[in-house]
C-alpha cells in the first residue's frame, strides 16, 4: 500500500496507482460531458470509500451502464461480488493475511479516543480519586483502595451531571472488587429484568435503534431477491428489531417474502414462556401487515450450546440471515466459546451475518487498562444521555441502571462471570476473518438513513455516524461507541 495515502485514509497499492489515476481521469471526462452523470452518482449507493480503486471502478460502471435512476440494490450487490476476480484470488488471500497481521499489531497498540467536556473542570478531583483507587487495586493495596473508594462516593454524591452518575457506578464496581463480594457482578438478577432495562435503554437514546436500523439495512440489501427469508436472532430480547424489518419487507415492490424468525433467548421458566409470547405478538403484527410469518423460540443457556440442527434451516427454499446485537462479546468469557458459535453459524451457511458490538476495548488483560478504557467509554455514553433530556425520565434513569450493570461487570467481575468483554471492531474483524467470514460493506444509503434517523430521534446533536472500512459506527461527538458490521462466508 502507498504509505502516504494510507495515513490519510486511502488504501491504494503503489502498483495500482497509475491505474487508479487513469480511472479518475476517465471519470472526470465522463462527468464533464454530461450533468446527468453527477446526479446519478449522487443517488448511487457508495461503498467503502477507502478502497479507492473499487470505489472509482464502481462509479465508472454506474455511468457506463446506465440503469434506471432508481436504486437497484440487487445490481450493486452483484457488482460487489464480481470484484474478487479469478486472478485476484491469491492476492485476496495475501491481502487478508496482511490485514490480519496489521490488525494484530493494532490490537497491541491502544488507541485511546478521549472527548473531554469542558464543564468537567470541577470533576477533576473525582476522576483523580477513581483512577487512584483503580491503581491501588492494580497494586493490590486494598487498604488504600478502600479509603479512596469511600472518597469517590462522597465526591460523586456532590458532582452534578453525567460525571457523578458514572462515578457512582464505577465506585460500586470498585467496592465490590475490593471486598471480593459477589463477583458475579450482579448478573444473577434474572433475564426479564435485564430485558426490561434494555427496553428503557432502547427508548431513551438512539444506540439500540441505530443498531437495529443499520443491521436491518444490511439484511434488506442481502435478501432483495429472496422469496423466503429466515432470520436467526441470537438475542431476541423484546424483539424490537423485527417489526421495522417486516414493515420494510411488506412494502417491497413485488410483494413481501415469507418471513421466518428463530429467536434465541435464555432458558424459560415453567410459569412463563416469554419467547413464545413474543412470537405470538410478532405473528399478530405480521398478519396485520400482510407478511407470511413463522416463529420458533430457541432457549439456550449459552449461545455456544447451539448446534446447527437446532435451527432447522431449509436451505433449498430459504435465504438465511443471522443477526447478533451485543451478544458475541459475552462468549469471550470462556475459551473457545465464540469460535464454536461462529463455526455453528458458518455451518448453516447464512447469506449474511449482521453483528453490532460496543466499540471499546474492555477485555484487556490488565485491570487498570480495562478500568481506564471503561471510564472513558461510559463517560461519553452517560454524557450523551445527559444531553438528550432536560428533565430526568424513567427511561433515562433505567438506562443508567442498564449501563451501570455493565460497568459493575467490567470492573468487578472476573472469569466466566465477566461477560461484558467488549472488543473493538478491529479485533472482531480479525476474529471473523480467521473463522472464515468476509466483510460485506455497508453503504452510503444506510449511512444517510441512519444519520436522518438520529436527527429525528435523538435530542442532542452530538451524535455522529461514521463509516469505517465498510462498517458503520455511532458515536457521541468524535468518540465511536457502537459498530455495525455485516459478513458473508469467505469466497461466497
Amino acid at each position, binding site marked *: 500500500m*502507498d504509505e*502516504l*495515502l494510507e495515513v*490519510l*485514509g*486511502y488504501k*491504494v497499492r503503489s502498483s495500482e*496507482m*497509475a491505474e*487508479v*489515476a487513469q480511472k*479518475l*481521469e476517465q471519470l*472526470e*471526462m465522463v*462527468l*464533464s*460531458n454530461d*450533468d446527468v452523470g*453527477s446526479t446519478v*452518482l*449522487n443517488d448511487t449507493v*457508495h461503498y467503502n*470509500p*477507502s478502497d*479507492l480503486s473499487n470505489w472509482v471502478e464502481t462509479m465508472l460502471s454506474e455511468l457506463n451502464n446506465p440503469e434506471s435512476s432508481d436504486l437497484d440494490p440487487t445490481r450493486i450487490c452483484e457488482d460487489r461480488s464480481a470484484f474478487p476476480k479469478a486472478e485476484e484470488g491469491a492476492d485476496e488471500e495475501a491481502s487478508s493475511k496482511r490485514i490480519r497481521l496489521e490488525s494484530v499489531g493494532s490490537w497491541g*497498540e*491502544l*488507541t*485511546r*479516543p*478521549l*472527548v*473531554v*467536556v*469542558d*464543564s468537567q473542570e470541577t470533576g*477533576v478531583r473525582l*476522576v*483523580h480519586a477513581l*483512577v487512584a483507587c483503580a491503581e491501588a487495586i492494580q497494586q493490590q493495596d486494598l487498604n488504600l483502595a478502600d479509603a479512596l473508594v469511600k472518597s469517590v462516593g462522597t465526591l460523586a454524591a456532590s458532582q452534578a451531571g453525567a460525571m457523578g452518575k458514572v462515578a457512582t457506578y464505577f465506585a460500586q464496581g470498585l467496592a465490590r472488587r475490593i471486598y471480593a463480594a459477589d463477583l458475579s457482578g450482579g448478573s444473577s438478577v434474572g433475564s426479564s429484568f435485564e430485558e426490561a432495562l434494555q427496553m428503557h435503554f432502547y427508548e431513551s437514546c438512539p444506540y439500540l435503534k441505530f443498531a437495529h436500523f443499520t443491521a436491518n439495512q444490511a439484511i434488506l440489501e442481502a435478501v432483495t431477491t429472496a422469496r423466503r427469508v429466515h432470520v436467526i436472532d441470537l438475542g431476541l430480547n423484546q424483539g424490537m428489531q423485527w417489526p421495522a424489518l417486516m414493515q420494510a419487507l411488506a412494502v417491497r415492490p413485488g410483494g413481501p417474502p415469507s418471513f421466518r424468525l428463530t429467536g434465541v433467548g435464555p432458558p424459560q421458566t415453567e410459569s412463563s414462556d416469554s419467547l413464545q409470547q413474543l412470537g405470538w405478538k410478532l405473528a399478530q403484527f405480521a398478519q396485520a401487515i400482510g407478511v407470511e410469518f413463522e416463529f420458533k423460540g430457541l432457549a439456550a443457556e449459552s449461545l455456544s450450546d447451539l448446534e446447527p440442527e437446532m435451527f432447522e434451516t431449509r436451505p433449498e427454499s430459504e435465504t438465511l440471515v443471522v443477526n447478533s446485537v451485543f451478544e458475541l462479546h459475552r462468549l469471550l468469557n470462556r475459551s473457545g466459546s465464540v469460535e464454536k458459535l461462529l463455526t455453528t453459524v458458518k455451518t448453516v451457511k447464512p447469506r449474511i451475518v449482521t453483528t453490532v458490538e460496543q466499540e471499546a476495548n474492555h477485555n484487556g488483560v490488565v485491570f487498570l*487498562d480495562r478500568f*481506564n478504557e471503561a*471510564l*472513558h467509554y461510559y463517560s461519553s455514553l452517560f454524557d450523551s444521555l445527559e444531553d438528550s433530556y432536560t428533565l430526568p425520565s424513567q427511561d433515562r434513569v433505567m438506562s443508567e441502571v442498564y449501563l451501570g450493570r455493565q460497568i459493575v461487570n467490567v470492573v468487578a467481575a472476573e472469569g466466566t462471570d465477566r461477560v461484558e468483554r467488549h472488543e473493538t471492531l478491529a479485533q472482531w474483524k480479525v476474529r471473523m476473518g480467521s473463522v472464515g467470514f468476509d466483510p460485506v460493506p455497508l453503504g*452510503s444509503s444506510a*449511512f*444517510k438513513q441512519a*444519520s*436522518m434517523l438520529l436527527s429525528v430521534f435523538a435530542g*442532542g*446533536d*452530538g451524535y455522529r*455516524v*461514521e*463509516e*469505517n472500512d465498510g462498517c458503520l459506527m455511532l458515536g457521541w*461527538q*468524535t468518540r*465511536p461507541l457502537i459498530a455495525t458490521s455485516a459478513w458473508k462466508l469467505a469466497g461466497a
Partner: protein
Amino acid sequence: MAASDEVNLIDSKTVVPLNTWVLISTFKLSYNLLRRSDGTFNRHLAEYLDRKVTANANPEDGVFSFDVVIDRTTSLLSRVYRPAYASDQEGPVSVLDLEKPLDDEIVPVILFFHGGSFAHSSSNSKIYDTLCRRLVGACGGCVVVSVNYRRAPESPYPCAYDDGWTALNWVNSRTWLESKKDSKVRIFLAGDSSGGNIVHNVALKAGEAGIDVLGNVLLNPMFGGEERTESEKRLDGKYFVTVRDRDWYWKAFLPEGEDREHPACNPFGARAKSLRGLRFPKSLVVVAGLDLIQDWQLAYAEGLERAGKEVRLVHLEKATIGFYLLPNNTYFHSVMDEIAAFVNAES
C-alpha cells in the same frame, strides 16, 4: 470534449507526484458530487466519504491528542495536539494529565482552522489530523488546537468566524496553555484555504478586543472578489480547481443576496474597512503558484503591507493546492520550516 481539457489533465499530472494527484483528484471528484447546482450540499454523502480519525491519548510519533467540547450550546469541538510528556511514554496519557500545564518557558499555541472552502472537512478529518500532528513536530514542540467550526451552506457567514472567536477566547483563558516565562498564552492563528480566511477575520476581532495574537499563518488562503483576475482566467480548471466551484462556495458562505465584494470575501476591496492604525499581528502568507486565486492572495499580502502590517510572503512557483497534505515534495518541507521559524521567532 475539447482537446484542451485533455491537456489540462495532463498538465496537473506533471507538476505533482502521482499519489498527490490521485489524492487531490479524489477530493475534486467527491466534491463535485456533493455540490448541487441549486446551492444545496449533499452533507450525508460528504460525511460518509470523509475519512475520519479519532483523537488518541496514546502518543503516536511523539504527539497525543484529545477532543474538547469548548461550547456545549453549539457543540463546538476542538482537537488539542500536544507533544508527549516523555519520549518513552508507555500507554495513553491519563485523563488527569491531558491539561497539564506547559513545562517550557515559551510554547507557541497554534489555533488552527482547517480548510475545505467553508463547506468540507472537520477537525477529525484524517488529512487535517495528520497535518496538525506534523505541525507539532515541525515547530519543535508547540500545542495545536484545531477548531471544528460550523460549515456552509448550513451555517453560513458569520458562523465560522463566531466559532473561531469562541475558540480564541477559550484558548486565551486556559491557564494550562500559558508559557512559563510570563504566564501568557502565546497564540498564533493558522489555517489553510477557508481556514486562512477565518484567521484574518478572527485576528481582526482580536485586535479590536485587545486579545494578543502573536502571528497569523495563512496557507493558500481563500479570498476573492467580483472581478475575474488574470490568474483565475489563466488557471481556470487547470490544476484541480475551477472558478465555477469557487463561486459556488462563496455563494454558500456569504449572506443571501451578497456578492463577492463582501469584506469577508474581499478584505481589501472597496467595502472593506481599512486596517491602518488597527492592531493586527504579523502574517506569514503562503501562496501556491498554480492556485487560480493567487492574484487575490497576493493582493491580500500587498494590502497588509500598504496598511503598515508586517508580512512575509512565500510564493511557491509550482505548487498546487493541497501540497501541504503530503510530505512528498520540497514545498511541504520548506513551508513547515517557514512556519516553525515564524512561530518560534518570538522570545
